């Protein structure tokens, strides 16, 4: 693994066509990592491993918040390509599989066509069943209600609010709406459901209200922001932090709209 990372000068030089393939495969893998929640260091490491594993001597990688650029070198030849990463979403299964692929390429000398086929397979991997995800997210928010000291009733309300909101979010994501709009609408749905029992006078507790919107916490962006900043990737770090902040603001906006719609006084 370390040999591949360090790039051995005695590798046979690749032809221009072969180097183009290597560059494209490594870039595809890197863009896929970036689009699904990997931090910048991880993207760079994966691209470098795959490129050198497939025969290039060296790869230079530029990770920007919405694009990845890779230059592969071999002998006297080099190839460069840019790939856009339009949406930053989260899919840990893809990170896991691309990581496994990069290990296989460095240890087992995989063919370029096999690597390409594997990337295609990974890009089409399914998510968990949407109903299961909605139920699990509901349970997670119910658990939060408990951690905040809520009663069984609070937990039940948070479960329903978060579960329905997650289902609505999945519908909206499929329609490719703006991510901030999706954030506000999802938060509005969750908090309207959670505030309904308060409006009807059934409870005075606001624990369900504050727990049911927690499904929207941009955890991956915030953790990646810290990791990128501490490792010196300031541009991607700032952008991820900003994105996390804006998405958090969307949660608050949705909650405020719900309070206003249900005409509940500020507590």
């Amino acid at each position, binding site marked *: 693994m370390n040999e591949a990372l360090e790039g051995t000068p005695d590798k046979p030089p690749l032809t221009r066509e072969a180097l183009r393939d290597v560059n494209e495969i490594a870039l595809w893998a890197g863009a896929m990592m970036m689009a699904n929640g990997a931090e910048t260091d991880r993207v760079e490491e994966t691209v470098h491993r795959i490129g050198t594993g497939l025969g290039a001597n060296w790869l230079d990688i530029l990770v920007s918040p919405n694009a990845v650029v890779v230059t592969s070198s071999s002998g006297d030849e080099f190839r460069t390509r840019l790939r856009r990463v339009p949406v930053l979403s989260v899919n840990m299964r893809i990170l*896991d599989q691309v*990581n496994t692929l990069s290990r296989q390429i460095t240890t087992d000398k995989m063919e370029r066509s096999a690597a390409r086929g594997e990337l295609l397979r990974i890009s089409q991997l399914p998510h*968990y069943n949407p109903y299961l995800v909605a139920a699990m*997210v509901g349970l997670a928010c119910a658990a*939060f209600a408990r*951690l905040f*000291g809520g009663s069984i009733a609070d937990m039940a309300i948070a479960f329903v609010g978060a579960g329905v909101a997650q289902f609505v979010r999945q519908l909206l994501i499929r329609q490719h709406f703006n991510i901030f709009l999706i954030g506000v609408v999802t938060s509005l749905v969750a908090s309207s459901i959670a505030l309904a029992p308060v409006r009807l006078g059934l409870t005075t507790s606001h624990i369900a209200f504050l727990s049911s919107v927690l499904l929207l916490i941009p*955890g991956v962006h915030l953790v990646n922001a*810290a990791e990128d900043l501490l490792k010196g990737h300031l541009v991607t770090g700032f952008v991820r932090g900003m994105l996390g902040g804006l998405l958090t603001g969307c949660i608050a906006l949705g909650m405020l709209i719900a309070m206003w719609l249900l005409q509940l006084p500020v507590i």
Partner: protein
Amino acid sequence: MVPSPTFGFFLEDIFWAGLATLGFAVLFNVPRRLLPACVLCGAAGHVVRQLLVVMFGASLEVATFAGAIVVGLLGEVFARRWHAPAIIFQVAAAIPLVPGAFAYRGMLALIRLPGAETESVSPFAEAGIFFIRTGLILAAIGGGIAIPNLLRQRRKPTRDSIH
């Protein structure tokens, strides 16, 4: 809201923090074989924080930082054991540490701001306190998780080693 520090309290805390982590791990599409490790990571981080707060009276900021370091370390250990990126274990495990209640109280204070002159305690001060504490705790989570990763020894090649 602070219960008596009994064994049962911490057991219950482990259970609910683990469940919250599991829900978010499924949301982030973590592969099934890695789910138990995620849950362990999240439950450990949260119970360490609760232990420090309840037993030793630590501030939430300091306790969260310790909890996040536990999450970061366990993530690195699990990453080696299961040959998967550490972030898979760390992100879902970080979620239970997020200070949702503080952010909420900050927001409530902020929307009381227009009527501030009629109140005794300034909502401005209240919003400031809660937002600053929220920010500090978020920074503690991010920093705590990233630090174990920074300590990992990595031989980084430089271009000069080739040409």
